């Protein structure tokens, strides 16, 4: 367990703290290498590649765009609602979002 924490602290983007989950989504969905995935996400969110790993910048961006944040306040978008917006923003299909839409009749 401690290994994951060390990776996050020393070398990884940090998921919802920044845009790590979004970059990984592009690796999974489109088979992108790290640089290409970062450039794609940065362009879609309107930030620089450098800012993509900055928690201060990305928390504001994610909150504004409803992409989910690490410490959600009242009214913040979390869970499936955030994934629906992520799929729209990145221009990809997210499997669980498609299933949810079907089940909810959306």
């Amino acid at each position: 367990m401690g290994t994951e924490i060390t990776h996050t602290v020393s070398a990884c983007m940090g998921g919802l703290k920044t845009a790590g989950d979004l970059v990984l989504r592009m690796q999974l969905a489109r088979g992108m290498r790290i640089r290409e995935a970062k450039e794609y996400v940065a362009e879609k969110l309107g930030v620089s590649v450098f800012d993509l790993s900055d928690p201060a910048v990305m928390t504001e961006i994610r909150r504004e765009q409803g992409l989910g944040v690490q410490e959600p306040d009242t009214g913040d978008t979390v869970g499936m609602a955030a994934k629906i917006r992520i799929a729209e923003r990145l221009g990809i299909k997210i499997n669980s979002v498609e299933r949810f839409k079907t089940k909810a009749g959306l």
Partner: protein
Amino acid sequence: MTRYFTRMGDGFGVWMTEDEIRADIREGVLDAADRGKIPPLTEEEMDHLFRIITMDGVIVGVKHGEEVVSSTDQGADTVGCECGVPIDRVIQVPLLERAFGLDSTDYGFTDYNFKAVKSIVNYETASIERALDISVIPVLYGGMPNLGFYTKPDGPVDNWAELLPRGKVEEALKAQEAAVELAVHDIVYVAGQMYEAGVDGINLDTCGAAGDADFLAALLACEEIKRLYPDLGVEIGMAGEFVLGMHGRLKYDGVRLAGLYPHKQVKLAEKAGATIFGAVVNTNSSRSFPWNIARVCTFMKECVKEAGQIAVHVNVGMGVGGIPMCETLPSDVVSRADKALIEICKIDGL
């Protein structure tokens, strides 16, 4: 004479001089280059590795903007199963997402293999659907091909590890081939159920643990998963740096699997349609961290170079990726392995 604190491959600390560290780095590099028939690291890269190993501080980090992403092979049950905290897997996903800051996680059954999951897959899909509703990060479903589970008395196939010592070579080969077919069927079946439940990807973990037939099962299963569900991500993570030739004659895409090192494994994973390759280099527990990480970097630099469009996530955990073979992993060597792999090998993830 200045001595630097580092560790042996069993996790215990050791104080080494600059000359000793540099000698171990060079020896590790040459060992990988010789075994893999690949180029050694350059003098500049070995200097950089020395600086990373001897940096001040318990934890070192990558430069701003060079962070990578992480995938896991823990079955999303590390908190509950390994740490003994009584908490359901469904809750562990948002916990790993919001408290631990993981970029993704994988969900899995405690036994972590597809044969075991097949009979309870409906409970697994119901559980993972709840986790997907309340989480944002990508969630993969993970398990091992684990070909050994198909042998008698647990499975229907004769045990090739018992047949081979008795000289029954043809029977042992046929038994492995039969196990491959059964494993591919189970993996694809479970993957299909998980796809219907909404997962983001399938993590085929510890591939090749039972040898070349085990790796072949993973490649064939991946190929079939991508044919049936093209938009489903697949990660192929390896069991070791070298595919053991338990069968010895098996091929994929015309390439004999026995004896392949990571820079050749990655090409086959990509050919099979995988989107992420989990590369592995084993740790020698009686050698130093400088020797082990130098060896890892030499293999991984070539692996990343040979990868086309597939992301390379290096396994950096207990007993692999330069990390000591001990249960509670020291952050000093983990963070140094991460930094070296990112800055020297340009990996895509961990």
